[in-house]
């Protein structure tokens, strides 16, 4: 089911947690809400769930206005960071809970409930553990129970609040791939909140980057990474360098030196130059470049990260080089960004 969020405001006391947020979520989409803590991503998720009520604005499920509906009426599936399983119930009872408590008119027969729950246990690969209690499961297994429990009620939309946040790195990676598989198989419209950009970029069809209660950018992982629309998104996603430059006659200048990058069509004046450490080319001679002295160099997996001091006013930049390119301390390196973006304050 498609979900539309329209001009949502949410204030906690006097503190605005969300400020005029609008977002269209397509049916069957897997969408990530990404942002630092305090950006309002969890609040947005909880508003869609009905666990919070908006100060102003409307939320539509399909064509229906869901904003005035209670959590129970919205028929959503919610997965919490810390699982929130019912500890006195077995895995099977946890998963069947949502169906068992329905009023008699909408409740499947008990054999149907059991069959449905067993199917889900199978789907989340926990066969054989249905009689266990949550305390007897590992973190990753608990989170899979929580997901199965949320899916049991055939939710309109599946909402996941930092679902892998409490798990260790290895399990997190594995569950991430597995969640994508489950999503492709079941096709539930899914919104998940994360502060882990790698997770968002790897898993989601579209990523919503949020900051300070506003949406900064919505786009595919490629769009978000390759064409960030704001300094925040550029700085938040991936690694980036920021330099103060000046635009003059279609060229970029640092102080009185041209850096050999043409910025045709940009109006003159001061600006901030953003570029990623790997979007550079090394230069042998410097007739228009950025040059610096190597202050640190470390090898990270398949690349070499080199820190350069490029002068007192600019501070340091980090660039990435192929590992075979050695960079001894105090040596001089000249480079030029090949892919960059200008932002003006």
């Amino acid at each position, binding site marked *: 089911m498609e979900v539309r969020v329209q001009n949502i405001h949410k204030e906690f006391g006097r503190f605005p947690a969300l400020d005029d947020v609008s977002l269209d979520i397509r049916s069957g989409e897997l969408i990530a809400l990404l942002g630092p803590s305090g950006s309002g991503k969890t609040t947005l998720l909880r508003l869609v769930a009905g666990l919070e009520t908006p100060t102003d604005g409307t939320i539509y499920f399909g064509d229906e206005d869901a904003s005035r509906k209670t959590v129970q009426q919205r028929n959503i599936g919610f997965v919490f960071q810390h699982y929130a399983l019912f500890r*006195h119930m077995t895995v099977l009872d946890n998963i069947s809970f*949502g169906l068992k408590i329905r009023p008699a008119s909408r409740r499947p027969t008990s054999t149907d409930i059991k069959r449905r729950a067993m199917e889900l246990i199978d789907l989340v690969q926990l066969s054989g553990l249905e009689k266990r209690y949550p305390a007897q499961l590992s973190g990753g297994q608990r989170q899979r129970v929580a997901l199965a429990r949320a899916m049991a009620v055939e939710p309109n939309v599946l909402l996941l609040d930092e679902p892998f946040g409490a798990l260790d790195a290895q399990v997190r990676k594995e569950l991430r791939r597995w969640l994508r598989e489950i999503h492709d198989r079941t096709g539930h419209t899914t919104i998940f909140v994360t502060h882990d950009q790698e997770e968002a970029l790897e898993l989601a069809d579209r990523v919503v980057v949020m900051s300070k209660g506003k949406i900064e950018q919505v786009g595919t992982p490629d769009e978000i990474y390759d064409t960030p629309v704001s300094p925040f998104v550029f700085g938040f996603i991936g690694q980036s360098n920021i330099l103060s430059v000046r635009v003059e006659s279609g060229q970029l200048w640092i102080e009185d030196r041209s850096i050999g990058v043409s910025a045709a069509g940009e109006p003159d004046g001061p600006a901030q130059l953003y570029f990623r450490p790997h979007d550079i080319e090394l230069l042998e001679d410097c007739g228009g470049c950025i040059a610096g002295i190597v202050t640190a160099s470390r090898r990270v997996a398949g690349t070499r990260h080199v820190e350069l001091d490029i002068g007192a006013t600019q501070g340091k930049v980090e660039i990435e080089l192929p590992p075979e390119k050695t960079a001894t301390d105090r040596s001089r390196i000249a480079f030029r960004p090949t892919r960059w973006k200008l932002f003006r304050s």
Partner: protein
Amino acid sequence: MTASTRKRWQFRQPSVIPGFGLALGVTLSWLILIILIPLSGLLWRSSALGWETFWAMATDQRTLNALRISFGTAFAAALVNVVFGVILAWVLVRYRFPGKRIIDAMVDLPFALPTAVAGIALTTLYAPNGWIGSLLTPLGIKIAFTPIGIVIALVFVGLPFVVRTVQPIMEEIDKEVEEAAATLGANRFQTISRVLLPGLTPAVLTGFALAFARGVGEYGSVIFIAGNLPYVSEIAPLLIVIRLEEFNYPAATAIAAVMLVISFAMLLVINMIQAWSRRRYGYGT
């Protein structure tokens, strides 16, 4: 499998803090000194009676009635305390309101107050000419000097046991668990009855056991309000005192021994239920 069978079962879990032997030794000696020696003295004295005399004294009609009143009222009072103690603990854990600290402190008053004071105060209130008693007398309800009066006194002394055992467990309940129930479609009643209360069962049982045990042994507050009519509102501890004052030590020890056995059996059963439910609800693992 082979590794676990080869490894012998042992009492002792490896631990960074040494001194298992010493700690267990101290514990056992202390238990023997404080609990076991006095109690076995009691049993030994009553065994000196000979089985037939003992049985005759223990099954005397007045004794039986007193025992029934003692255990019955303690049971009823513990049940009442479970209901209201859980509600009270809930209010203290979940809501913020002016005067909360004062109410929280008031819960412990029955611990500190000499029980005789409570007994006198309750009697003044519930006697036929007291504030509450005078309102109830025209309706034909008599509280003071009946078993109902005993229950009220025991509710008073037992309340903190339930509140103080349930409260910390309630504080641990994650709000997310309730939210999870709501997202799955559970209404408030279902959330409370199927999610929250079952999780509290072990703590509630402990509170019940403590309040019950306290009620069985209570003396000070009850004797004022009970009226102490033999066969009607006379509790077993009072009967023991009466026998002692008559210098009828064998009868006193016989009643005491019976109380001891029943209490121990009931507490043992409650503890076993509790251990079972703790295991079941995943506290012990």
